[in-house]
């Protein structure tokens, strides 16, 4: 199925959790914040958060800044 992650269409497995998706991207779920269809998801909910077709996901994290 397809989701939109950071404005890019992405193919993901049916029933994949947010946590698994973040780990598959080689990212650390503890340092990435996810906004799923406009709602910030709490870190403790990542593992149980199953993504759905057409979802709009934003993955954001800290970078260097002044």
């Amino acid at each position, binding site marked *: 199925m397809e989701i939109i992650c950071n404005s890019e269409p992405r193919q993901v497995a049916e029933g994949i959790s947010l946590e698994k998706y973040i780990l598959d991207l080689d990212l650390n779920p*503890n340092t990435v*914040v996810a906004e799923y269809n406009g709602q910030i998801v709490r870190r403790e909910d990542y593992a149980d958060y199953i993504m759905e077709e057409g979802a709009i996901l934003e993955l954001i994290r800290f970078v260097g*800044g*002044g």
Partner: protein
Amino acid sequence: MLTIAGHKFSSRLFGGTGKFSSSEIMKKALDASGCEMITVALRRVNLNDPGDDIMSIIDRKRYLLLPNTSGARDADEAIRLARFARASGGGDWLKLEVTPDPRTLLPDPVETLRATEVLVKEGFIVLPYMNADPILALRLQDVGAAAVMPLGSPIGTNQGILTRFQIEIIIEQARVPVVVDAGLGAPSHAALAMEMGADAVLVNTAIAVAGDPVIMAQAFAKAVEAGRMAYESGLGRQQRESMASSPQSGLEFLD
């Protein structure tokens, strides 16, 4: 000792983490600066090239994080970024930045005040980046800003303190700490801010883009300390006319 929102700081130099040529140099420069609070920004992950994760580089036990809202063009965007920062595990501290004009990056006073009001109510410890406007500083502290951060000169310009007169008034009037932020391009600029009575300074660009950021970080640390010592010991008054340093009597033998 400097206290902001009940937190004690032994260093009056706050560091930025942007523009360093590598994570390794950033880490060494922050270490050399002795700073205890550092700013970070929030951005989308680049899915095709995620790069280093700054949170795996920064020692959270050593540094208090001050996430910024850089990139926000109005209060709503800044509030959204602040909530992201908190959700990212960035804590409650926030450098509030609202800069609608990418050319000057000057802060929007109306939106900054509005966002401060909202974010303070949400429990954030808000340090607003602001133009050096004494009235605005009072308004921001009235709505609960934990400190105010007037600019010396526009972000990244290295021009030093072009707002001296206004910052002096802000320092005279403020009940909350005053942190001079932006534009400090040389250790002498930081020393001047501290001599004027600023409680702290925030430096990013001048350290990050220096030929040797580690040595420059040390230079800023010394300047901040020297400036503060000078302020605490009481600077002599400036005046127009000369006052001899040597005695004016006892010269009769020259006659």
